[in-house]
Every structure is written in structure tokens, then in C-alpha cells.
């Protein structure tokens, strides 16, 4: 799994590509924690290029949300569609995670 990283002002945008499953979830979670540890507390995770996410991936997203809040930062998710949207729906994760339609909306939510 590759992760593209971009900066938009004080907001860090992460765009993972491929699958977030039991093999890759930990690596992705560590990447988020590392960013928080170096002071990047405003994170947008764009899931547009993700083809699959397992329960391990969702667990990492929940850990990322809690860690961000502990650092008094903000986390927003966007780019959820197709199969990933179906998986969000079956787990009702939009109740647990801050989900926005577009990257722009996610960045705006950081203000």
C-alpha cells in the first residue's frame, strides 16, 4: 500500500492507495501516529484510491481519531465511494468517524 502525502496550509492530507487490510493496516496506523508525533495535528485522510478496507483498517481509523483528539487536533475522512462506501455503511462507521464528501469540505472542517 502506497500513501501519498500532501500539505494544504496546516492541514496534512494522506491518500492511501490499494488495500487497507490486516497486512497493511498497522503500517498505515503507524504513519498517522508518526505525523501526530511531529506536530501535524490536522489530518485529512482521502480514501478515494482505496479499493478495500477491512475491520483492521477501520480499527486503525478509530485509533487515529482518538490519537488526534488527544493531541487536540482534528481528523476528517473523505473520498468514500463504491465498495468502500458499502463497507462504511455495513459497519455504520459514519456514526463513529467524521466523514465529508470532498477533500475541500474536509479541509474547511479544520477551520
Amino acid at each position, binding site marked *: 500500500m502506497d500513501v501519498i502525502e500532501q500539505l494544504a496550509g496546516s492541514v496534512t492530507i494522506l491518500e492511501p492507495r490499494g*488495500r487497507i*487490510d*490486516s*497486512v497493511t493496516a498497522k503500517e498505515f496506523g503507524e504513519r498517522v501516529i508518526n505525523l501526530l508525533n511531529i506536530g501535524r495535528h490536522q489530518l485529512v485522510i482521502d480514501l478515494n484510491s482505496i479499493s*478495500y478496507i*477491512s*475491520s*483492521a483498517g*477501520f*480499527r486503525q481509523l*478509530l*485509533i487515529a481519531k*482518538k490519537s488526534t483528539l488527544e493531541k487536540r487536533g482534528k481528523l476528517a475522512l473523505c473520498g468514500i465511494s463504491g*465498495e468502500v462506501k458499502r*463497507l462504511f*455503511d*455495513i*459497519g*455504520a462507521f459514519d456514526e*463513529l468517524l467524521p466523514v465529508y464528501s470532498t477533500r475541500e469540505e474536509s479541509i474547511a472542517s479544520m477551520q
Partner: protein
Amino acid sequence: MNSAAIPEQEGRSPSSDLVGLTPKRFRKKKLIARFLAHAYRDPVLPPNTKKPAALIYGADDRLSAGIALSNGLQHVGLISINLVYPLLICRLVGAPIPVVEDMLAIGMMVLAFGTIIQVLRLGPIGSGLMLPSTFTATYFAPCIIAARIGGLPLAFGMTLFAGGFEAVIAPLLNRLRTFLPVELSGLVIFMISVTIGIAGMRQMLGPTAGPVSGAEWAVAATTLGSMAALNIWAKGLARMLCALIGLIIGYISALATGVLTLPLLDPVFRAQWLGIPHVRHVAWSFDATLMAPFAIASVAAAMKAAGTVTICQKMNDANWVRPDMQSVTRGVLADAVTTVVAGLFGTFGTNTSTPSAGLASATGVASRNVALAAAAVFFALGFCPKLTAMLAIMPRPVVVAALLYALAFILINGLQIMMSRMLDARRTFVLAFGIIGGLTVEIFPNSVKLLPDSIAAIAGSSLVTATVIALLLNLVFRIGVRKTATLLIEREQIDPQKIDDFFIKQSNTWGARPDVAKRASFGVIQLVDAVAENCWSHGAMAVRASFDEFRMEIVITYPGEKIEFPDERPSADQIRDSDEGARLLAGFMLKRNADRVRSATKEGRCTVHFHYEH
């Protein structure tokens, strides 16, 4: 939600009218308020339903009385063409005009009743969706046979039976899919239209029909031509109500050409504007030999009702994925109860109106209030003897033209349903031999005289013959239809991509839908994820996938313990902070991902069974 276009909900609590009442009246009114809240005011759509952009008023939206009434009138206009079915059945058995008038008046009230119980949710009955009732072509052929053998009482009695039979099969529809595949329902619809078309043409050209004058041909051509022309070239309301306008044009041309004379109009002149219909024509009788044709017709009616409920579900939900079978069953039960009531009060079988679902989709108005308005209009029309008398004297060429217009859409719909499936050799034989068998009975009616009397009564119906042939061939040809493939996964070499590739390849080979293959693939990968750490102790995991056109079954066997499939999602804290919480989440997602899940452990090996409807 499409908030810009949505009117606000009324938001009144059922108890807001209860202030200042005596305790007895309070309790009574509270009970009524609770009943209404449950049956009508409570939302019928699931809370996470997303309204499609094209839909202005969804099932749960309330609208003003004016909008509801104008839309209700459109539905009544659309449905009224189907009054031609009971009318023609009465004509074919020579029922007197007053009986036809009463039967039509009661028929309209039955349609009102059916529309209301569909929109309410009374016990297990009613989908809660905007789905008016209509008379149906489905019961036409069986009713003709019954009425010819035992008069109208036998047709009414067997209609009661058909409604009861539909109620019995309503909860079983999903399980009967193997025996009643989609293409077979297409065949039934096609044969229904063929039967009606031939019955209609026999009115003009049959050996017992009176000679047809030039004026009658002209009236038939004008009626049918105007209906078709309005449907093709008109716009808006004129197109929507083309059948009704065509009927009016038919009457006018019949008057102008002398086909409809003043003496023939006498029952209309004598009829009152307002009056209560009689039930003196109501009587019932039963004949066991007619159970087969009525049972087949009721299966066709149930399948059509299920289809119409599904159309309405889809119309109301932008994220619709698959039919909500509970709502479908409730809708079919409401349809069945309406047919029972129709038989009980001396009229013919009904069905949910597919054109009404189409109209709701076209106008973007699918609110339940519209159904109530349509029911009110039908109920009121039932008390207008002048109108029913006018319908009862409908001239022969107008009846035939209306019938041909109505069946054109049914016939093509039947063909489309048959052709919607990939017609392999199995299905080709099932459909072709079914159609040939049915047409043989229509063209050579004497051919059944060679059969014993009890079978001849059944085989004498082209619809029944075609359906029975197709049902039997479908059963025989199912031998060897199931396909299977197995994938072995080593615990030390787990590769999710390999699992995904397996399902993509197999679904392409089998012709399975990609969305079902994706769900199956997710199920296996997620299970592997969940059990790999703690439950799967050693050795290989065997994934056996099997598929037929109705389902995909995945049976996964591995040495080790089984995982739990909870009904409730674990809390965010549980998921985050414990491995057990993460496993529970996996089990929860797996349960929601499949249509059915079960697991068992035997002699140290766990077997998980995922079932996906196709």
C-alpha cells in the same frame, strides 16, 4: 436527503390532540392515535434511506390536499382502463347490465380498499408504499373458464381461493425463486396477454360473435388509434391519461356512427347520479378442477406484486441494493387480501398497479397521501351509478380496442422479462416449449378432448398448459446447474489479492454479478483476517464456492475455533482498545455483509457458511 425540494413533515405527536378529554374518551382516542401512528404516520422507509434527486415527495413525505388529490386523480385515470377486464368477463358470460353495473361499482370500492390496506401497515399486511390496486389481466383467463363452467358465482368463489393461495405463498416467494425463475414469470405474463388478445379478437371475429359492421371497425380503429397516438406523440397529462381519453373518444365516435344508440343508452339515462350498489349478484361456488389455473394466476399476481413493491422501494431509495423482502411480503399479502375481498363482494381478482408505479416515478410524487386520495376518488366513484352504467354499456369495438391497448404493454413486458436473462439452451427449451404448448391449446382447442375430463379442464387453458410445461421442464433442466470451485489458503501464505482474484475469475466464468462476487470476496478476506491470529490454529483453510443463478454459497473450513457473529456492533472503545473488540467488529461486519451466516465446530475443525442471494 434532498432537502431543497422536500416539504416539512407535519411533526405532530399522536398525543397532541388528547388534551382536555374525559379519561374514557382519552383512552379511546389514545388507542386510535397509537393505531394511526403505527399504521400510517410512522415512517415506512428505513432511517438511513437517501431520497433520489428525481423524487420530489417520497413515501413518508406529506403533501397538501390539493396536490394529493390532483395526483390521485391521475392514478385513477390511469388505472380505470383496467375496468375493461371485469367488463369483458361479464360480457363473455352474458351477465345482465344491472349486474355489471353493481359489479363495477363494488369493484371500484374494492380497489379503494386495496389501495388503503397497501398504504397502511395493519399487522403483517401492507407495504406502506404508494401502490394503488387495479383489476388485472392475470385472472382473466381462469375467470372466463370458471364463469363459463359455473357462472359468476364460480368465478367469485375461485377468486376467493386465488386470494387465499396468494396469501399462503407470499412469505415463501423468496424460497420459491428456484422453481419460479424470472424468465418463467415473463412467460406467464406473455401468455396472459396472448389469451386476452385472442379473447378480445374472438369478440369481433369468433364463431359465436355477431357480424361486425363497418361502423364498428371504424370505432375500434378510432379508439385504438387515438390511444396509441396520444401515447406516442402527446405530452404531459394528455399522454398520461391517453387510455382514458381514448375511451371517451371511443364513446363519442360510437355515438356519432350509430354504434351506440339512444335505446342502448337507456340504462345510463335511468341511473341516478348517486346511489348505493347492490350485492344481490354475490354468490360463491367452488370447483377443485379449477384450482390449478387460479393457483397459477395467483402465483403470477404475487410475483407481479413483489416486482411492483420492489420498484417502489427502489424509487424511494437512492442507495437501493436489493429488495427488502419483509416489505415485499407485506405488499403481496395486502394484494392477496384485496383479491379475497374482491371474491367475497362479487368481483374479480386485483393486483398492484405497475403503471401507477411508473407514473409516480415520472412525476416524482410517491407520497402515501396520493394513494389515500386515489382511494377516496375510487370510493366516491363507486357511489355513482350513472358512471358504472356508462361503463357497463361500453360498445364492443371500444372494449376490444381498450383491451388491445392494455395488452400491448403486457405482451412486450412479458417478452422483455423473458429476454432479460441470458437464454442458454436450458431456458430456450423451457420457454419455447411452454409457448408452443400454450398456443397449441389456443389454436387447436379440440386437442384436449383426448384427455380425461379432470385434466382437460386444466389443460384447456393455454396459460395453464404453457406454465405447467415450463415449470416441469425448468425442474428437469435444473439437473447439473450448480457450479463449484475450491481455493486452498495456507496459513503462512495469506494473500488477500489471490482471494480477490479467485472470486473475480469465478464470477466471470459463472456469470455471477460483480457486486455479489465482491461481497463474497470481502467475506473470505475479512474472515481470514479475523481468524488468522487466534482462531485458525494450523494447516490450510479450504474455501469452497458454489453458484447457481439464485445464490452463491461459500463454505470455509479451517482447523481451529469459530468466531462470533454478533448482532450489535461493538463500541468504538472496544474496537480500538482490545483484540476481542476488533474480532467482534469483524464478525459483525461479516454478518451484515452476507444474507445468511452460520458456523459450527466439529472435531477441531470450524466450518463457516456464507449465503449470498443472487
